[in-house]
């Protein structure tokens, strides 16, 4: 092992429980032991995933959040006796790894409940909600400290919890912790005075207008959280360690408005000064560990940082509040293990909390221990598989039902949390397979086929692997994307997969006789709109990003036709890193209004455009493109905009080669335009059956 990682592999204590190393797997929704939002049960998929993490060497595993009362079915978590009976032998097996496991118990979502359209309809209508309440009580699920607006749905207001409801919940926290301890669980983590969840809504003055013992002073606003730890100690024992998921700062400017990492702003939520006092109150109440980051659902990119956020974005704040308490503290949020090791060695931090890396590479800890860190598949912070709650102006949570039921999967690693569906089964009939196209779809197909025992050969028309992902990863802040490409290239070499560069295949007949099967992974080409006069003058993303025109001194004002993710990312790079003047023209009513893109990612881009004062024209289009100008048609009229270029951001269309047949398959964007998840998962769906 590289010595720089050694501090990560030293033990530490939470209360009386010794954790074998400093690596904490942060809780991720969906990776639960008792099911996600469905009726609680012992979840075999979650159990398998969590056990594998412990076997890999994670010191403390925190399964996904477990609401103390089932959202579906509304049973209290402590009422399912059969579940705890199954848990006991599982914990015996788990402890053979040497790792520790704390169950994360949640006090609910409050106004952050990511309601879908049907849930919002129930929540807005008292009668419908009452009728549905034996199965799902949306008004209860969204109940909060006070009447506050829902983060996701317009015209949906949380109702305040009654004191009786709060105290009932507090008691059940204790009762559940007692059962968990009896089943062999090492501790619990309370979720959460963090990220704007229910307990955080009680803690934040601007979200809590109560006049009873749960509102007003900081002590009162933290009373819900402090009563929970006391109830747990009363019922499960004083020595049962209780961790708290905690946001040091809210980084929130107002309802649905987050702050950029470099922005000076007036804090709407909890600021650093209040946090200094809060952590002392929480420690004195009995919490033994603080698992920290920043943010709320209104500033979601702090708690779930996309690639646009800097590495270790919460570290300085977490280390600051650590000075005010004696209990150990972990930091989460794009944590770099090397930086974390340095901070632990220096005594400024106790543990590093890492979440998504555990989804994308199930052996990352082992690879560090064995000095093989170059083999770790990097997380690209896309949230496409693990956390794709999405929202645009006027919508509720647009996530599909299938995704709602299965958080905690991975765009780049399909077997994560679906190990029975996606697995490498060695073939009994090895085949020679031609793969046309060396983009991500082609490379992933080659790896799956090779691991199964086939003999794939990649035909790449250029001299470089990566396809359109070379363009997507060219932006300044896309270091993770670049690292992923490096990883793919290394993996192809490691598996000795043949790549024929500068070989374009336009006619499948020429290679049909030499191969048993063909996979077409030829990607897509930019969509064209010839009805716009002068459209041929537009620049495409490859010219702008990969070919480096973004850095051209003569390119100062650029108009993006289309306000999707690619346009907004390029515009952000342009304004933030190159100090240029992007303008966005979008036909719809919001930027990045895609169903599959997480609100943490899209809200950053929307907030960034606002902060950097990027002109955004919604419900608008371009009617003409000329030399040095374009005509922009808005609802208020058409005007001439001088510009150095217009970028074609209206999307892509599939560009397959040849016809499909029993032995000719298609993978990636040449099937339908999607994202890396659709590309990688389809590569597995197809290559597992060849």
């Amino acid at each position, binding site marked *: 092992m590289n010595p720089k990682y050694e501090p990560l592999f030293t033990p530490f204590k939470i209360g009386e429980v010794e954790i074998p190393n400093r690596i904490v797997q942060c809780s991720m929704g969906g990776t639960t032991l008792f099911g996600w939002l469905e009726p609680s049960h012992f979840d075999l998929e979650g159990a398998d995933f969590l056990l594998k993490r412990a076997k890999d060497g994670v010191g403390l595993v925190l399964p996904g959040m477990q609401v103390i009362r089932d959202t579906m*079915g509304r049973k209290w978590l402590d009422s*399912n*006796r*059969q579940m705890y009976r199954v848990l006991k032998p599982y914990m015996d097996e788990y402890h053979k790894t040497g790792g520790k496991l704390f169950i994360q118990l949640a006090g609910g979502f409050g106004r952050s409940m990511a309601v879908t359209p049907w849930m919002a309809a129930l929540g807005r209508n008292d009668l419908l909600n009452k009728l549905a309440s034996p199965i799902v009580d949306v008004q209860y699920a969204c109940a909060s400290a006070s009447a506050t607006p829902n983060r996701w749905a317009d015209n949906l207001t949380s109702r305040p919890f009654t004191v009786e409801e709060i105290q009932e919940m507090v008691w059940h926290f204790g009762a559940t912790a007692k059962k968990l301890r009896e089943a062999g669980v090492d501790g619990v983590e309370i979720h959460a005075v963090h990220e704007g969840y229910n307990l955080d809504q009680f803690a934040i003055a601007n979200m809590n207008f109560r006049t009873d013992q749960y509102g007003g002073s900081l002590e009162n606003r933290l009373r819900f959280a402090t009563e929970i730890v006391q109830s747990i100690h009363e019922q499960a024992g004083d020595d049962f360690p209780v961790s708290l998921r905690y946001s040091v700062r809210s980084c929130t400017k107002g309802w649905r408005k987050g702050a950029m990492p470099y922005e000076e702003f007036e804090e709407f939520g909890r600021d650093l000064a209040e946090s200094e006092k809060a952590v002392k109150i929480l420690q004195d109440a009995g919490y033994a560990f603080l698992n920290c980051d920043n943010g709320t659902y209104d500033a979601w990119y702090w708690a779930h940082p996309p690639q646009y956020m800097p590495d270790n974005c919460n570290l300085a704040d977490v280390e600051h509040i650590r000075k005010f308490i004696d209990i150990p503290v972990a930091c989460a949020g794009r944590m770099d293990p090397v930086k974390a090791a340095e901070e632990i060695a220096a005594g400024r931090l106790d543990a590093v909390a890492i979440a998504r890396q555990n989804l994308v590479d199930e052996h990352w800890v082992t690879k560090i221990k064995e000095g093989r860190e170059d083999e770790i598949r990097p997380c690209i912070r896309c949230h496409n598989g693990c956390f794709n709650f999405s929202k645009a102006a006027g919508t509720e949570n647009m996530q599909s*039902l*299938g995704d709602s039921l299965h958080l905690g999967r991975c765009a780049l690693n399909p077997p994560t949390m679906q190990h029975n569906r996606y697995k490498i089964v060695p073939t009994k009939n090895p085949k020679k397979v031609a793969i046309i196209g060396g983009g991500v779809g082609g490379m992933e197909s080659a790896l799956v086929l090779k691991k199964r025992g086939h003999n794939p050969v990649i035909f790449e028309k250029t001299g470089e692997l990566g396809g359109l992902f070379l363009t997507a990863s060219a932006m300044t802040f896309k270091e993770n994307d670049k690292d992923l490409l490096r990883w793919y290239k290394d993996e192809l070499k490691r598996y000795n997969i043949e790549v024929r560069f500068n070989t374009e295949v336009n006619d499948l007949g020429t290679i049909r006789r030499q191969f048993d099967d063909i996979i077409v992974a030829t990607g897509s080409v930019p969509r064209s709109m010839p009805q716009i006069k002068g459209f041929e003058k537009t620049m495409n993303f490859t010219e702008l990003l990969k070919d480096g025109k973004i850095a051209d001194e003569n390119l100062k004002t650029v108009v993006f036709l289309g306000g999707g993710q690619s346009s907004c990312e390029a515009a952000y790079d342009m304004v933030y890193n190159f100090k240029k003047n992007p303008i966005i023209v979008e036909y719809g009513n919001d930027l990045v209004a895609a169903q599959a893109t997480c609100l943490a990612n899209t809200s950053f881009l929307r907030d960034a455009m606002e902060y950097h004062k990027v002109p955004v024209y919604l419900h608008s289009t371009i009617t003409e493109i000329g030399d040095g100008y374009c005509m922009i048609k808005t609802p208020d009229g058409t005007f001439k905009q001088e510009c150095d270029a217009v970028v074609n951001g209206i999307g892509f269309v599939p560009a397959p080669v040849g016809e499909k047949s029993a032995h000719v398959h298609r993978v990636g964007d040449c099937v339908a335009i999607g994202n890396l998840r659709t590309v990688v998962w*389809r590569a597995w769906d*197809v290559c597992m*059956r060849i």
Partner: protein
Amino acid sequence: MKKAAKKLLFLVCFGGFAYLAGKLVQKDEVKQKLFQLMGEDAYIAVQDKVYLLGDLLMWPVDFVRALLP
């Protein structure tokens, strides 16, 4: 009585058949054959629906199991 016995026999046979069919399609060889017969697009679409249906069917099952002593 005879009618009821017939119905019961039918249900047992149907249940048994469904169980065996379910077990059969979980085999990789059978999945591969279905993939070839249906074509990749249809196979993947049906597979997604089957998994979703399975998830939803588990809700009432889990709910009832939680009530067991």
